[in-house]
């Protein structure tokens, strides 16, 4: 009798422990996915800030260029073909520093590496990491997460679009969202007619190379903030900067 009771107690303990372990395991995977979502948002924030810094840097380099004479007011022109409108005061002027949100480590640097593609006919440049590896992101864990997502794609039931997070869960968890009934409207009474051949210069900017171009020049920049590097075109951050006619 005692043996039977003891056996039942042990079996129950094993079952309870197994349930707790299973619960913790699934919670851990779910948390890891949420952690990945936070990291992706941080990367996008960093990309926006880095690209703004690059834009300011390119603007300074372009302001050193005299369009009338085709020479530099100061500094030297970029040797890369098609970038001769950018005049650099020093090598350091070709780098931007940035830090990762929430990372207390030292700042990282991205520096101009020249033409993005040998066959590019436009002003396209690439910025690459200098001095510092992408610490914090470029960790084994980050590489594993990036590899796993790349390999398995979206893990069904665990990954979700944050924008729809409230709806991806049960209806009761979207209960905090207010109704949109009674919402007001807004509109411009003078809509814009912005197309490739019309005027509207202040609102419709077009880079050189297309009909109705109204910019002095444009530079397309690419850089990589992805853990493990950028092995496919869609891994890169791209941004085009224009220089307004002077």
């Amino acid at each position, binding site marked *: 009798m*005692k043996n*039977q009771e*003891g056996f039942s107690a042990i079996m*129950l303990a094993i079952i*309870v422990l197994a349930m*707790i372990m299973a619960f913790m395991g699934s*919670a851990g995977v779910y*948390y890891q996915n*949420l952690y990945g979502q*936070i990291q*992706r*948002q941080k990367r*996008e*924030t960093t990309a*926006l800030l880095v690209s703004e810094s690059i834009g*300011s840097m*390119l*603007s300074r380099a372009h302001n050193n260029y005299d369009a009338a004479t085709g020479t530099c007011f100061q500094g030297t022109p970029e040797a890369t073909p098609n970038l001769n409108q950018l005049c650099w005061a020093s090598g350091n002027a070709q780098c931007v520093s940035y830090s990762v949100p929430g990372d207390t480590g030292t700042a990282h640097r991205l520096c101009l590496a020249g033409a993005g593609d040998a*066959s*590019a006919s*436009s002003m*396209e440049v690439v910025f690459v990491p200098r001095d510092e590896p992408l610490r914090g992101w470029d960790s084994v864990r980050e590489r594993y997460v990036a590899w796993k997502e790349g390999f398995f794609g979206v893990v069904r039931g665990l990954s979700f679009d*944050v*924008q729809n997070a409230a709806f991806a869960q049960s209806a009761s968890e979207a209960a*905090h969202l*207010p109704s*949109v009934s*009674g919402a*007001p*409207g*807004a*509109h*411009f*009474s*003078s*809509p*814009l*007619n912005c197309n490739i051949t019309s005027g509207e*210069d*202040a*609102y*419709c*900017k*077009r880079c050189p*190379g*297309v009909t109705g171009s109204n910019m002095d020049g*444009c530079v*397309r920049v690419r850089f990589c903030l*992805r853990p493990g590097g950028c092995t496919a*075109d*869609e891994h*890169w*951050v791209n*941004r*085009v*900067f*224009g220089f*307004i*006619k*002077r």
Partner: protein
Amino acid sequence: MVGLGVLSVLILLATVLSTWATYRYFSVRDRLLTETIAYQAENIFRGVFGQAVDVAFTGSFSADGLPEALAGRTGQIYDDGVALTGQPERRRFDFDRISASKPWMRVATFYRENSTGITTGLGVKGAGATAKGGSLPTMVFYRSPTVDKSGVIFFDLSSLNNNNALKTPDYGDVFIDRISSFEIVKTRHVNPSFNKTTSIEVNLKFRYHLFAGGKASWCPMEDISSGASGCSNGSVSRDIERHFVVTLGNNLLKAAGSGYFGSVSKEEERVMGDLYFFRMSAPARW
């Protein structure tokens, strides 16, 4: 008898552990989800307001924020009509209590540059920086929180630039929820004649709950501490604060052909001088 005792202790232990684990699971999940939305909010503000092409500093407002119809194409961002003390170049609104705003507010309306400046698809090398412009109307609305509903910011991002239709917020738009407090402080260009906004400082508070009993509350902390009606129900919650500054780098100070203060310069001028930002294209999956 001993076995029965052990069994009872185990059941008790399992119950306590399960309750604790469930409480922790939902609390941590709610915090992580809220943190994600907080970071996402910064990206949306930077990606939308950072692309604004023409935003005034002062304007005409109503109790619901901006007027329903905006004349011309110069956009506006709502403020409470009063400059900050000793800082005439700064104005703000601060929705830190339920009663601080109407239930619905028109917060901002402006055109934004939506083109990436890339003609042949995301990330294609050697495509050439040839592009056509793509200024699109943008409407931002705020739904203030109530005792049991969170505050929500809606970004109605139109896809047509020549459409005069009335835009209203809905959940098909980009939206940011879980908000308990929302403040924007905007800064004017140093030259008051321009009357243009150069940057906005955004302060947001996002609410998550600890699921320690009690009913979930979305009352702003100001209302909870002042004991506003319905806001002292004993819910256990925390607020995550996000504070960031967005430069309106594309904002038009003056169009080409117009000068100021006798200057011979008739060139177009923007907040970042001659620099123009097309929209950034980020990887679909990082």
